[in-house]
């Protein structure tokens, strides 16, 4: 899962080079119209059990997943209404036996396709088939830079070794590679080595994504929350590496919003430039949106078109723009900069998605939550609750029993 989807392009927005970023502030793509990129969560099934998984705690079962024909119809419709990029994600998208067929169909209808994968189910043969089907880019998640930490976080033996192998095949096949490294208290000490690993793997991009605390990650916050010192060190390491590796490895860095003063402009604003499709076909403003209770999300299996759902459905319109805001957002000078932060985080931490995201220093809850995060970061509660269809399983045998 990529947390940087809607924040792309800051580095490329220099007007002197004849390139504008289409999703830049004030652009057509940002203010109205169909999103440029859509995330297709093909399945929630996954061989990994990462405790910070971005999927909802209530996972869609395999039996409810859209069929091959349904996904192909969706891809055709997306291309027709103006979507340009499709991110195949999950769960683990390669758990779908029809992935090659779906990638080929995406190519046929003119979509730029990106595979967001844990890589552990991929064979070289499968990767060749995906490349032949027109896959444009591969993003592989890593849980650390060596098996001891990485396999424990993933909850799967030999996962790290397999990921390294698949990353090498990816580059051998001349497919562009992004390494996605999800960072938290228990692996931030490996950040420098993770960066070197990405260089060694000949990756084009590295996403250093600090965990965002919703769903599974919120359940595991005490075991994952970094200390302020760790974040400061991480920012220093990334800054140094980004300068040193200019032209070799592009680094995108996502800071955990608990330690920032301003909330993030989550998803570029609710229903402004992004939607994702759940395994069962629901059109969602973000991958965590189903955690907000009281919202009804329309499905591609309904009688409505995707464009209609995007433009007219109650769930998308509920938090669009600024009209829904209460104070302190309502009169805030930043209300159209960050749109009050993240609705899912506001709901998870305050019980009302219409409140200011507590990541914002102007939220009356900010102080309490920041203090709590500091306490959790300083605790030595390192046991994970692993992600699974049973609602989670606590890690056994102390700190290292993956």
């Amino acid at each position, binding site marked *: 899962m990529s947390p940087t989807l809607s924040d792309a392009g800051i580095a490329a927005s220099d007007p002197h*080079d*004849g390139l504008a970023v*289409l999703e830049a502030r004030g652009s057509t793509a940002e203010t109205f119209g169909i999103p440029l990129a859509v995330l297709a969560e093909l399945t929630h099934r996954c061989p990994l059990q990462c405790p910070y998984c971005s999927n909802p705690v209530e996972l869609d079962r395999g039996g409810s997943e859209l069929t091959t024909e349904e996904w192909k119809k969706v891809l055709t419709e997306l291309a027709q209404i103006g979507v*340009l990029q499709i991110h195949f994600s999950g769960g683990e998208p390669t758990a779908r036996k029809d992935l090659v067929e779906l990638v080929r169909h995406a190519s046929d209808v003119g979509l730029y396709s990106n595979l967001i994968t844990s890589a552990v189910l991929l064979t070289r043969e499968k990767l060749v088939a995906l490349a032949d089907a027109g896959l444009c880019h591969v993003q592989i998640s890593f849980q650390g830079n060596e098996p001891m930490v990485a396999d424990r976080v993933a909850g799967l033996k030999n996962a790290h070794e397999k990921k390294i192998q698949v990353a090498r095949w990816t580059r051998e096949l001349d497919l562009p590679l992004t390494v996605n490294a999800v960072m938290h208290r228990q692996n931030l000490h490996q950040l420098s080595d993770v960066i070197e690993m990405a260089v060694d793997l000949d990756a084009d991009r590295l996403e250093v994504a600090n965990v965002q605390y919703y769903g599974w990650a919120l359940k595991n916050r005490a075991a994952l929350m970094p200390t302020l010192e760790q974040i400061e060190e991480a920012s220093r390491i990334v800054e140094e590496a980004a300068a040193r590796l200019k032209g070799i490895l592009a680094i995108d860095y996502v800071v955990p919003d608990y330690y920032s003063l301003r909330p993030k402009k989550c998803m570029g604003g609710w229903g402004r430039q992004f939607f994702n499709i759940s395994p069962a076909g629901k059109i969602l403003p973000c991958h965590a949106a189903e955690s907000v209770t009281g919202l009804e999300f329309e499905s591609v299996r309904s009688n409505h078109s995707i464009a209609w759902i995007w433009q007219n459905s109650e769930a998308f319109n509920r938090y669009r723009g600024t009209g829904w805001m209460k104070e302190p957002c309502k009169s805030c000078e930043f209300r159209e900069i960050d749109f009050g932060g993240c609705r899912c985080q506001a709901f998870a931490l305050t019980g009302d998605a219409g409140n200011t995201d507590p990541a914002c220093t102007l939220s009356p809850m900010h102080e309490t939550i920041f203090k709590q995060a500091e306490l959790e970061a300083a605790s030595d509660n390192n046991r994970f609750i692993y992600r699974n269809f049973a609602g989670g399983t606590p890690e056994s045998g102390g700190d290292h029993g993956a």
Partner: protein
Amino acid sequence: MAGRGRNIRVSETSRPVLPRHARLKFDETRQVWVILAPERVLAPDDIAVEVLQLCDGVRSVADMVDGLAAKYAAERQAIATDVIAMLQDLADKGFLTEAREKTS
């Protein structure tokens, strides 16, 4: 690893081409040219589009400049400077690579 020509220096003898992850495409819905790249959609301006369409990995920069200088009846050196600067910038951002030498 052979590498894909990262950090390329664009000169008149270069034969640049868009890498696999960067696709130049006309967006019918929005009626603009776009470059599709990982996590990014860029909108090149008219001049950039014209130059990028010439980047097929076969044509050299010198050939492109000759063509553009003739088409716009402009001074060749001025065109060359502008084209090379623009291509270098694209290359630095990872949206341009150099065609591999054919070994056959």
